[in-house]
């Protein structure tokens, strides 16, 4: 019996013992064809999913190598049924391909006639096809390229898209010298992997410099480029980065948002404006076809809204780059990302990057506050929909928030206090004498506050959930979360991203979540705890009276 680091379960999960001397080599081999489900301190769980296997297949791996890896690293005999399943699943990718025929234009071709016969009869597929050309080929209307790929994935025969891309209007994007723009090894690999494929997703953790990968891809494409981001602040940051890292002039980089409607050779637009509706129409969606874009970058592709997917289906001949920290979507539409943006092209192991010092490891502490009698009564009496707010905004939390902030200030660590309820945030701001930044804060004021915080002029900044997405606060090494209902996986990733940026001096980031004991605030905390622990963060629970500065 081999003594490998991997245990293969028949429910398609793979358990990797990280303390095993061979664990790293094993991880490097299995990561490309699995999804990392959780990576707590000792045993990491990977899952074999069809999408993960197809991603691997698209990256040129074959079933034999996957089976080999499983057999080589497995400690116990691998269930035969699982190996058969892996081989069968992988064999489904690429039986069908989309190609350009010299006479008929876009066609779907097969190496396996039976598969073609099966799919042309599938209800979801048939309406997307044109006339049959021969036993192995059927023509496809160009406009259906994306929808056809979606439908084929759904029936379990994902097609390989070899139909190529239009180059778009040529436009050189020149990057500045090494002091302003230099790519780390993994970023370079990501740019190259994407460039070779033409479309697909690059997965990098928060703080690993996805923006730079995007700029690198633009430079390589040398064409008109459209960048889609989650909100205006993020758009401004992208713009600032583009101006700082490249020789593009102000006038060459446009912002297309609620406030400005500029269309320039390089344009940064928000999902918000694209999906803004007038009646049943999306008037701004035309932006996607307004220019002869040579590259479209989708930032935070896991948040891509459904209408943008629909539009993306129509522009399958343009190069598309998805950037994200996670392929997991709360809405389960990972398959659409695969079909419409493209397969995963690069996936840097988070822990490797952390080990290289690009990301600061974070210490997480949940601080439990015992509510006073009155607060408990108020909580018990509250209506269901009010109950969370009553628990989460309990005044008993304020003392410990103050104490943590004071401790951080003494230590010279900039603090972000994050919360959901404005009353609560205002009160904290008053008590701490700290500025409060919310959705109502004008953009200019926001940028000013961020700037001051970055420069260390403001030691404590209180922010609402607007801070969750794509703002860059490089010097925040401590985050205190006082409220937040969501407990969703991305939100946690985002919040932690705030404090995960690399610190100049290699200090440890600290994340505190202050929760009210015996309320549903605590239930949400339990979910957060699970998520963070699964991501491998150190996680402690402490009583408010006994909380110590984690070392």
């Amino acid at each position, binding site marked *: 019996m081999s003594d490998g680091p991997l245990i293969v379960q028949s429910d398609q999960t793979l358990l990797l013992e990280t303390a095993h001397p061979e664990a790293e080599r094993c991880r490097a081999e299995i990561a490309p064809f699995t999804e990392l489900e959780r990576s707590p301190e000792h045993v990491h769980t990977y899952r074999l999913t069809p999408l993960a296997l197809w991603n691997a297949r698209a990256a040129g791996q074959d079933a034999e190598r996957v089976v080999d890896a499983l057999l080589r690293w497995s400690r116990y005999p691998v269930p035969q049924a699982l190996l058969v399943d892996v081989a069968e699943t992988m064999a489904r990718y690429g039986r069908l391909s989309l190609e350009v025929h010299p006479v008929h234009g876009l066609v779907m071709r097969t190496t396996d006639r039976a598969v073609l016969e099966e799919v042309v009869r599938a209800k979801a597929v048939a309406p997307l096809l044109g006339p049959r050309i021969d036993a192995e080929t059927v023509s496809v209307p160009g406009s259906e390229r994306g929808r056809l790929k979606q439908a084929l994935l759904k029936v379990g025969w994902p097609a390989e898209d070899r139909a190529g891309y239009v180059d778009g209007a040529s436009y050189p994007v020149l990057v500045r010298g090494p002091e302003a723009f230099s790519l780390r090894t993994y970023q370079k690999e990501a740019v190259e992997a994407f460039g070779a494929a033409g479309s697909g997703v690059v997965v990098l953790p928060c703080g690993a410099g996805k923006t730079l990968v995007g700029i690198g891809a633009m430079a390589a494409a040398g064409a008109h480029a459209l960048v889609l981001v989650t909100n205006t602040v993020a758009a401004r940051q992208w713009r600032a980065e583009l101006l700082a890292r490249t020789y593009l002039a102000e006038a060459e980089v446009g912002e297309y948002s609620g406030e400005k409607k500029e269309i320039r050779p390089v344009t940064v637009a928000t999902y918000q404006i694209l999906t803004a509706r007038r009646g049943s129409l999306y008037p701004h969606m035309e932006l996607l076809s307004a220019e002869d874009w040579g590259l479209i970058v989708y930032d935070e592709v896991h948040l891509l809204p459904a209408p943008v997917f629909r539009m993306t289906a129509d522009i399958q001949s343009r190069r598309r780059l998805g950037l994200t920290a996670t392929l997991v979507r709360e809405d389960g539409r990972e398959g659409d990302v695969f079909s419409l943006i493209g397969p995963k092209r690069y996936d840097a192991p988070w822990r490797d990057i952390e080990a290289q010092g690009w990301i600061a490891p974070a210490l997480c502490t949940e601080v439990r506050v015992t509510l006073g009698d009155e607060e408990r009564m108020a909580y018990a009496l509250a209506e269901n929909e009010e109950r969370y707010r009553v628990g989460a905004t309990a005044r008993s939390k304020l003392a410990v928030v103050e104490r943590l902030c004071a401790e951080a200030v003494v230590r010279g660590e900039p603090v972000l206090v994050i919360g959901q309820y404005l009353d609560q945030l205002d009160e904290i701001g008053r008590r701490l004498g700290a500025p409060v930044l919310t959705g109502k804060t004008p953009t200019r004021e926001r940028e000013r506050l961020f700037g001051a915080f970055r420069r260390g002029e403001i030691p404590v900044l209180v922010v609402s959930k607007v801070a969750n997405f794509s703002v860059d606060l490089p010097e925040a090494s401590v985050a205190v979360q006082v409220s937040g209902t969501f407990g969703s996986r991305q939100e946690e990733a985002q919040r932690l991203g705030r404090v995960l940026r690399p610190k100049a001096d290699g200090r440890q980031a600290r994340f505190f979540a202050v929760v009210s004991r015996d309320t549903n605030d605590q239930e949400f905390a339990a979910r957060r705890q699970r998520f963070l622990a699964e991501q491998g963060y150190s996680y*402690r629970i402490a009583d408010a009276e006994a909380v110590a500065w984690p070392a």
Partner: protein
Amino acid sequence: MAPFPSSTGRIEAPGHWLEALVAASSDELGSLLRARPDLAFSGPKDLAHLAAMMVSPASAAMYFEGANRAARQVLEALCALPVPVTATFLAGALGCSPEALSSLLQPLATAGMVLRRGDELTVNPGLAHTVDWPCHLGPPAAKLLGQRTSGELARIAGRLGVPANGNKDGLLRRLTSALSDRELLSSLLAGAPATVLELVESAAHIWPNYHVSYGVAAASGRDEHPVGWCLQRGLLVGTDYSTAVMPREVAMALRGGRLFPSFSPYPPELVTSPVDQGDVDGDAAHTALDLLKSVRVLCEAWGSAPAKLLQAGGVGAREVRRAAKLLARDEEVAARLIELAGMAGLVAADETLAQAAPTAEYDTWKGLSSVEQWAELASAWLMAPGHPSVAGSRDEDDKLVPPLEERELSASAVVERALVVDVLAGAGPGRRVDVQSAAAMVGWLRPSTWESEEASSEEVVQWVFEEAAMLGLCARGASSSFGRAIAGGDTEGAKKLLAELAPAVVDTVILQADFTATATGEPVPALRSELDLLADVESSGNATVWRFSEASLRRGFEAGRRAADIQEFLASRAPSGVPQALSYLVDDLGRRYGRVRVGKASSYVRSEDPSLLSEVLRDRRLANLRLRSLVPTVMVSERPSEEVRDALAKAGYLPASETAEGTLVLTRPAVVRARSPLAPRSELEGGGEGPPDYGPDQLSELLGLLDDLKDPGETDEELLEEVLGDPDLLGSLTGLPADLARLLVMMSRDDAPSSDQDLDALVEKLRSTPLASAAPFPARAGKGAPGLAMGAGGHPGHPSLFDGGTPR
């Protein structure tokens, strides 16, 4: 030598059989006793006694039962052919070479079934009663026609063109010779109508008897009727009112002198193909352990929610579907699995409660290691008096047979299974066995087992293959190493082999901050059961992953664990340490658990903390409970206490139940147990070596027969001893194949010789005991062995049972 039994109630062997024994060497006697163990078990007093038993119908029949097709055909042929028979003649009648025949005769001679004197062969006279219609042939013409009047014979002779003059004996001889004449018969039949040819064909080749519903006599006068046509020419002879039989000579002539349409001295070819034994073992270990998991899941599920029984008994399709879903297996497989668990005594149908649930035996089994659990299941299967796959199959009316339905015990299933398993295991390591050829092989090995079976033998063979695969005795159509071991009776060896393939046994877990506990192998039972209590299984297989939650830990507190107990357990089982968050959670729950207490009798809620109680009282989520306050620390509800407790728990109060005295009630989730139909099996504790211990009590229960047989004044033990002393009687009474009867006899006798030393000692005793007289034979008048009608005539010459044996 006089035929037996003698007037004194003793059975004596014809002299030359005894002479052969007297002349035999010790080795030869030893071989005889090994080939026919029943002779040794019945405790022969001396060689005369042994000889008498050797030719007794019971013992001869037992050998015939267990013989393979070729041996049976040889024995049948010897019964059918007129004496004296030479080996050369026999070879001709069988259609095989004398050399091939001699390889078949050798073991028959060793076993005392054939006596060789010079070139002459004599078949064991005891067989005459077993083989009624040897080779499907009727009685000799002389015997049949001898019953008819001379007038009738003369008429037949007339039709055959045989002179009808002279005395009856002469006429009989002439008729016999005419009916044996192939040419005469073919010219006779050349002019016969097609219906006659059809009838003759069937009587000659398939079965010699013909049933004439309106009477043979009525038919005999009508030449236009095919039966009448044959009767008038002696091709059929009436034996009673409605039966006509074809004389042996006629059928032999029509068969062209061949006794069997096909005869081969060799077994059919077993088709096998190579397969990697390592792959086989890996897969087999997987399925074996998977099966255990399924059985545990099923039993745990039925323990809290028993399956309802059908009115007619058994677990209905709906419950089977539920189980299939639970186990993520096909319904057919789920039914089979339930039946198997029933056969192993782990689940049972309780008719009075109309439900099926795990037995107390399951609790013992659950505490065993996986390897032990597997050995229990596999041993139970090997000895199960029925095929688990009957459950879930379709009966004659195309209805699904429900599992755990009361069915007749089918002892032949044990033999059938053993045969198939032997063939499968016998193919050796790395050989995949073709099912169809295995079916042909087991048919050849023991024709008697399969002829009586309702289900076709191929179906049964397929079942056994599938069941063996489910248990991991085979995989990919080839036997596993541990499967071969347990099939060969080496249970300990099998366990060792499986243990090497199974995940390592671990007594520790890895605890992580995401509240999971991971056992990277097979957890020891104590670890598994405690974690099952404190956490929920998230993934199982080679490794097991549990997850702790407030709800799961609450189960622990409800079962009486204190926070300190849980901490200690976790610390002692987790070498990598207990994550602070988990430790905190346990302490926090321990602190809060029981702060709210719920009483059952009057359903009250009380707490030392008045404000907490008034909080509870005014909690909108608990409005349904209609709580009212009695004193600041006590309130009551109209709702049942369980509902109150659950609602409080759901609202996050962690209530504890308490007794009238105010002490905490420890509760576990209610589990149901059914009474096992089998008494607890001793080897559950003892490691289970060898066949299960069927003591006299169990036998009587199993067979349920003894009361009817009991003579006045006889004790149970005496009666049982008597029945067990006579496998044939036992077999005929119970319908058990003689083989199984023999097995039971063997197992019931403490003094039965089992080792080679025992046998050698017996042989020496027999050889040294003077032949005082024929020893009494335990024949049971009236109830027992059928009387004997045929003895072998005395023959000159030196009898020799053994090849190359010379008279001494």
